[in-house]
């Protein structure tokens, strides 16, 4: 039997209420003057900033991290509901806005949802928000009954006075609870006792995703809204030289043609289709600027020079002089790898809806970073912080693309809306614009040199990265603080921390020659672990082979000091049956990584037909994220990460010609289909402790090298550059 889900996301009022659009009271909250109860838009009392209890006993849980499919809102709600002892069937979600947060001294903390941080970096304070609310609700009931708090318990949104058997609901005592002072000492449950968190509960947002009623940014409708299509200079760093608005001003539906900053032109029309049709007709002359002749070959050459450069930044160094150790090695192995630019290609193209007046500017749309978008609206609108706000909606994919980048779609939308004061404008990029103006996975080359002793054991390793820094483009202040170094470049191979190298090599040097081409880079699901895992985990197999050792045994010897990393690797190897021969025609490969504070490993089985048709039959993936808040969602993130990662491995490359990206749509930037999907078997093995690891990204990086290692075993050919289509290899 199928029950209709009991959970819905309470849709904010913006769809129907023009007052919310235009009024100065767009804050959904009613703040009291002086001490008193803060009320939600419907008048229900706020117990803590994370919890509102409605009179009908509905629990509204606030979430400020963005939902883009990764299940964060469900996981965070589970954590709050667990400590709150809430009735899970009566839980709904609400998104506070960055403007509300600003007005309340950042009461909800960080909004940014990237780096697999959504749950792991807010778990403690949201759980405390739930626990504090429970304590206040119980105290309110105890006070009403005039009994000690210690005689009362809470479960399923019901409070019971044990000695008398009296019961009441959260809804009935919420008003009184909201007037109590928040407790300062808020103990949390032992995760071993969790009943809601840690369980494979269904997502809270599925019902609207199967009947077409979920509102994404592209679906927004505001009263009097017009639509805009934009074209930015295809060459990064170029500008608009000229265009003649009269050329299209008479076309059906067209209201206005506007320049967007120095670099873009937009057509505003009644429908987006009319806007796009007119924009496609419009002749725009560009000043293509200094990058107009740059090609992929030029960029590759720049990176290649960095492979032997003298000046570098060090990310990991151990033991003695690596060059000396390599010179004295019994056997020296060397290989050069490379990784291309890749677009995120979120299913929902970039968009933002903005209404600007001299008094107020609001943006409705998908963002992974509400506060970052707020800052951009603030800057582009020219208004004060109390006069702007951002309303997040469900994201049709994020993968890092909807983080905050300079001169991106949010800024464009404000600059367009400013030219039609009072009229809400929905800016939507075409897929072609989305492909041409990504924030691309950075390019990187890598030279690896390893030294083996006479027994085939690794004594020295030099891993030289040469390529692009994301932070140099996106967060230059971090680079400045690091004296020029981009620590993120070393994800998965860093000396310590949440992305540390899980091998102990007697003589080790991992360094980076930073080379920053003109193509704007961005955080692409997994970020720098994608290429670092391909480089180091492929090379580990090359070293093992050169040393005449089994790749698993070779790794194990280097991992004695990294028990959690070894734990996931062993688990994946055991489940794939590594110690037994593979079935006829099947070849195996494996890989591991420590990243985003999770330990991940994958082992795969592939077959290869005609030397180039690869079928990935099976991937076993093991992850140790410390804590597993929703195992069902973790399984889905793991399987999904392999679709994203293997699409990148086999198909995806954005090439540069005449300063611009050559790929334009899914016909020349392919993505995996269901026929190519391997069977994914997940092993979720949280070992607890003080560290909470990420889920959305870590596993993405181990599928690629595991498949490359299996391919080398199957064919004897070591592939050292991505994507595999450039080697004539197909995924079938």
């Amino acid at each position, binding site marked *: 039997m*199928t029950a209709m889900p009991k959970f819905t996301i309470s849709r904010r009022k913006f769809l129907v209420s023009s007052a919310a659009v235009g009024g100065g009271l767009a804050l959904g909250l009613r703040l009291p003057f002086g001490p008193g109860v803060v009320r939600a838009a419907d008048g229900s009392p706020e117990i803590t900033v994370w919890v509102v209890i409605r009179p009908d006993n509905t629990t509204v849980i606030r979430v400020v991290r963005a939902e883009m*499919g*990764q*299940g964060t809102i469900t996981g965070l709600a589970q954590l709050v509901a667990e400590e709150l002892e809430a009735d899970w069937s009566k839980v709904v979600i609400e998104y506070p806005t960055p403007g509300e947060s600003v007005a309340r001294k950042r009461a909800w903390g960080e909004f940014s949802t990237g780096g697999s941080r959504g749950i792991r970096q807010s778990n403690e304070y949201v759980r405390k928000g739930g626990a504090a609310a429970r304590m206040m609700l119980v105290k309110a009931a105890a006070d009403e009954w005039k009994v000690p708090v210690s005689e009362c318990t809470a479960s399923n949104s019901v409070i019971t006075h044990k000695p008398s058997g009296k019961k009441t609901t959260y809804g009935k005592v919420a008003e009184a609870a909201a007037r109590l002072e928040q407790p300062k000492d808020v103990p949390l449950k032992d995760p071993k006792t969790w009943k809601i968190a840690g369980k494979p509960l*269904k*997502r809270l*947002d*599925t*019902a*609207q*995703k*199967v*009947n*077409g*009623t*979920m*509102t*994404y940014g*592209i*679906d927004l*409708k505001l009263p009097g809204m017009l*639509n805009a299509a934009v074209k930015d200079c295809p060459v990064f760093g170029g500008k608009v030289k000229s265009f003649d608005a009269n050329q299209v001003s008479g076309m*059906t539906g067209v209201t206005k043609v506007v320049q967007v900053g120095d670099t873009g032109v937009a057509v505003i029309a009644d*429908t*987006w*289709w009319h806007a796009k049709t007119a924009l496609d007709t419009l002749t725009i002359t560009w000043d293509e600027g200094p990058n107009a002749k740059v090609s992929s070959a030029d960029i590759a050459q720049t990176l290649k020079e960095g492979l032997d450069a003298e000046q570098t930044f060090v990310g990991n160094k151990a033991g003695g002089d690596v060059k000396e150790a390599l010179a004295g090695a019994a056997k020296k192995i060397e290989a050069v790898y490379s990784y291309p630019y890749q677009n995120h*290609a*979120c*299913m*929902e*193209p970039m968009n933002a809806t903005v209404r600007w007046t001299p008094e107020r500017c609001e943006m409705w749309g998908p963002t992974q970073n509400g506060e970052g978008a707020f800052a951009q609206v603030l800057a582009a609108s020219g208004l004060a912080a109390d006069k702007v706000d951002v309303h997040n909606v*469900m*994201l*049709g*994919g*994020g*993968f890092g693309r909807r983080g905050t980048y300079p001169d991106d779609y949010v800024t464009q939308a404000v600059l367009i809306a400013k030219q039609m004061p009072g009229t809400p404008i929905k800016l*939507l990029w*075409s*897929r072609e614009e989305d492909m041409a103006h990504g924030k691309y996975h950075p390019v990187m080359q890598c030279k690896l040199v390893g030294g083996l002793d006479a027994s085939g054991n690794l004594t020295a390793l030099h891993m030289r990265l040469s390529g692009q820094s994301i932070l140099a483009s996106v967060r230059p202040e971090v680079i400045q603080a690091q004296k020029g170094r981009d620590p993120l470049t070393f994800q998965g191979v860093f000396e310590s921390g949440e992305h540390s190298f899980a091998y102990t090599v007697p003589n080790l040097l991992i360094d980076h020659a930073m080379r920053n081409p003109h193509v704007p880079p961005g955080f692409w699901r997994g970020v720098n672990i994608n290429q670092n895992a391909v480089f180091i985990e492929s090379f580990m197999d090359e070293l093992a082979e050169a040393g005449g050792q089994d790749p698993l045994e070779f790794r194990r010897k280097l991992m004695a000091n990294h028990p959690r990393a070894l734990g996931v690797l062993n688990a994946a190897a055991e489940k794939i049956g590594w110690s037994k021969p593979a079935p006829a025609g099947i070849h195996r490969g494996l890989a591991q990584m420590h990243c985003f504070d999770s330990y991940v490993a994958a082992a795969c089985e592939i077959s290869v037909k005609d030397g180039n048709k690869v079928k990935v039959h099976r991937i076993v993936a093991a992850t140790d994220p410390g804590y597993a808040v929703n195992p*069902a969602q973790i399984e*889905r993130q793991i*399987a*999904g*990460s*392999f*679709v*994203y990662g293997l*699409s990148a491995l086999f198909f995806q490359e954005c090439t540069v010609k005449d300063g611009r990206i050559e790929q334009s*749509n*899914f*016909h020349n930037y392919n*993505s*995996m*289909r*269901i*026929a190519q*999907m391997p*069977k*994914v078997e997940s092993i979720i093995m949280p070992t607890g402790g003080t560290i909470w690891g990420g889920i959305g990204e870590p596993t993405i990086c181990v599928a690629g090298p595991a498949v490359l290692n299996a391919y080398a075993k199957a064919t004897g050919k070591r592939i050292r550059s991505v994507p595999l289509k450039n080697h004539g290899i197909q995924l079938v």
Partner: protein
Amino acid sequence: MRLTINGKSQEVDVDPTTPLLWVIREQVGLTGTKYGCGVAQCGACTVHVDGLAVRSCSVPVSAVAHAKITTIEGLATGKTLHKVQKAWLDHDVPQCGYCQSGMIMAVAALLKQKPKPSDADIDAAITNICRCGTFQQVREAIHMATKTA
């Protein structure tokens, strides 16, 4: 021009070359059908035209003037969800969900043609792109849907 969408006949005033997708989204106001590529690659815009799965971004509205069009909003019968929607709910298939309207419509059309599709049938018929990578759950949910009446 008159269009019959989800059993309702209505007049739309558009250029006949306008893609069906944009007529559905912008004139009729049904936004469950999504834009993903505009070139019939991704399938996010899949609707049924006379029962067959069609990528509406690449069909001029003039070509379907006399056809019966069903969008995701019209797949359920009243409040009773279509068996594919039920399976999607039961198996918690969607992640971001953006491609799922098209995915569900493509699967519903497949099950009409082949009530018990094999894995090979699924591979051949379902070519929609899902960037979140829900394929494993999609396949499992299709098999679940075929077991319900």
